[in-house]
């Protein structure tokens, strides 16, 4: 397989995952804005959404006010924002297009139709009442692509590169969402309790589509900061948790090592990070600092992405 092909497969899936995650962040932010009882400071809420999305500085270069209109425009439609939903969809398709021979027609058609459908939407016509349906549509499209990939793509190195892109992006996304709100997850806060905190915790869960599954995962289904953090970091049943992502990542790396008959540095890095997530307890993580843990994780995850592209000649 060409190094360039491996790179395109990695980024195709990574951008598809990003489109979905951005959309989910927008859904949650929009929901917050709809419930002004809790949205004590609308500007602050949009700011934290932009920070979670990792594009706050880009936003500030372009806009002076954190209004809903500006934020939605920037996150959903703005081509100047490399992580906007539009940019992500375009990048996913662009990468897919340059490796048409390495993906199936089902995968290509699902991405291409998303791109066509998205292009037909005019930002100025996106009224408040249409937004939820539209966001839902984008999310479903991203899921359709993933389904097409899982159902049709050959299980060879191309598949592993593609899955690595998706799970590295997903892990990054979950870690960022947690880090932006890490202080409300600190056990000290639990004493304060109160409906505002409960609301914030459920918001975090919604951002990763885990509001319902949390209630099933914890017998005492009331929201607790400790549990929310554990659910998203260490619980392997939770498909967007860091531990789950690294289960996949390590498996994919092992398959690559086996396929190529050669163990490279990126595999060691994945094993290290995976080890941290399997060996540490939540108590230990809180003790050494949640914020520090998350910052370190995000850096490791990024480092893996770079090492992967060096090891496998991503052009």
């Amino acid at each position: 397989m060409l190094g360039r092909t491996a790179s395109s497969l990695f980024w195709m899936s990574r951008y598809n995952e990003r489109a979905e995650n951005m959309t989910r962040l927008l859904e949650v932010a929009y929901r917050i804005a709809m419930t002004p009882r809790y949205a004590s400071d609308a500007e602050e809420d949009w700011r934290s959404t932009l920070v979670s999305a990792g594009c706050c500085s880009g936003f500030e270069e372009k806009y002076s006010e954190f209004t809903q209109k500006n934020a939605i425009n920037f996150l959903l439609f703005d081509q100047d924002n490399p992580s906007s939903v539009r940019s992500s969809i375009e990048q996913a398709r662009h990468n897919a297009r340059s490796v048409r021979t390495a993906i199936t027609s089902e995968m290509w058609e699902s991405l291409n139709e998303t791109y066509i459908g998205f292009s037909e939407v005019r930002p100025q016509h996106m009224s408040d009442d249409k937004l939820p349906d539209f966001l839902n549509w984008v999310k479903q499209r991203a899921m359709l692509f993933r389904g097409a990939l899982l159902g049709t793509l050959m299980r060879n190195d191309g598949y592993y590169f593609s899955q690595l892109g998706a799970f590295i992006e997903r892990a990054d996304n979950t870690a960022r969402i947690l880090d932006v709100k890490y202080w409300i997850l600190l056990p000290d806060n639990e004493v304060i309790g109160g409906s505002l905190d409960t609301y914030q915790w459920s918001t975090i869960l919604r951002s990763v589509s885990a509001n319902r599954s949390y209630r099933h995962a914890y017998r005492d289904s009331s929201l607790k900061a400790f549990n929310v953090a554990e659910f998203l970091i260490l619980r392997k049943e939770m498909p967007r948790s860091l531990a789950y992502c690294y289960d996949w990542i390590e498996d994919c790396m092992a398959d690559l090592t086996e396929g190529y008959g050669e163990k490279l540095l990126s595999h060691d890095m994945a094993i290290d990070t995976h080890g941290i997530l399997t060996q540490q307890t939540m108590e230990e993580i809180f003790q050494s600092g949640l914020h520090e843990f998350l910052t370190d994780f995000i850096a490791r995850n990024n480092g893996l992405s770079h090492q992967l592209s060096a090891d496998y000649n991503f052009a």
Partner: protein
Amino acid sequence: MEERQFFDEMLDESGGARAPYRDLAKWLEGKNPAELKKKSREAEVIFRRLGITFAVYGTSEATERLIPFDIMPRIISASEWRRLSAGIDQRVKALNAFLHDIYHRQEIIRAGRVPADLVIQNEAFLPEMIGFTPPAKVYAHIIGTDIVRVGANEFYVLEDNTRTPSGVSYMLENRETMMRLFPELFRTHRVAPVEHYPDLLKETLKSVAPDGVDDPTICVLTPGIFNSAYFEHAFLADTMGAELVEGRDLYVEGGKVWMRTTRTPQQVHVIYRRIDDAFLDPLTFRPESMLGVPGLFDAYRAGNVTICNAPGTGIADDKAIYAYVPDIIEFYTGQKPILNNVPTWNCAKEDDLKYVLDHLAEVVVKEVHGSGGYGMLIGPTSSKRELAEFRKRLEANPKNYIAQPTLSLSTCPTHSSSGVAPRHVDLRPYVLVGDKVRITPGGLTRVALKKGSLVVNSSQGGGTKDTWVLED
């Protein structure tokens, strides 16, 4: 009166359906305009979803466009096809023999059948190819022969396209689309299949691999995602199970060509290139080219890789050489040409130029190196001003032009806003030359969608049709 000026492929003089179209005509009687319109829209949705697009140069917005697809098939009978394919077979063999000759002993020039300077001073002639013999002595492996029909038994070859002819993916996707839209028509017609074209292409490419390579690695070399025919490059690589590469994915080391893979470099044996000669190798040809592979030409001459089509094949479809193709066929095959050549005036010759200038309103004038329907004049449909302007250009640089009589292109039933109506068409069958000649029954029919128009190029408002060759 006027409508009988052109040969109608569906209707005969009395208005009845010609034999190959009889069943289609009957089927068409039972269809109302709304049904056909709906099918036409369905077809567009299919093409857009598949992403079968071509890029349009010079437009800032929407760089990807669809070529309009016409839902009415073009039908060719088995006996008509036998004659056409015999003619094509003869022609492509002669052209390959011509290429071998002019890069070796140049017998045809010595025999005085083709003027020396027309070959030697031709831009498409590559001195770098002199003395080199590609595997199986084949130069032009993939050819798209442009043919027009003017009467029941009259076919003319318009161009030979021996460089990098495109459009074959449309032939294949048009068929797929038609089978989805009108399955009932395929039950009533015995349509010769075209879907095995990628297999034939792969067999052809394999058959010209360097000596001693039994299981060659084949790749399709594309200029990249922004090229107008990128879809086709990806499509062909995909359907052949070959690697789709850009110049930057390849490099030459030890006289061999290698792919930059995720780990161990892999040797490449056959390159189906879709980039022009000038861009192939910056060390041999245009030095600023970023699309090619430095050192590729040396690896080719060393016999370690086969380039298809060979560099320097452009001389065989040069518009000035075209006039000599009947001589070329006779010279190498000893037979009379089966397919007609269009009489051609070479404006470089004084007598010819005079004739063309005197009859400008009746003829078609083309640039010698032009393509895609750009820079041409169609006398009968041009205004006085256009004629006057073109006359100036022609007089300023006569060597740059050839002229031909305006051919009465046949018409085929075509779906239009006012129902099914006759529109002018041409035909490009796809021919593969390797250890043997492989011709896919059918080809790409291009149709001038505008009423009365004779220009079928997609860049000038043309569309495409599925082309059916009926089996006996």
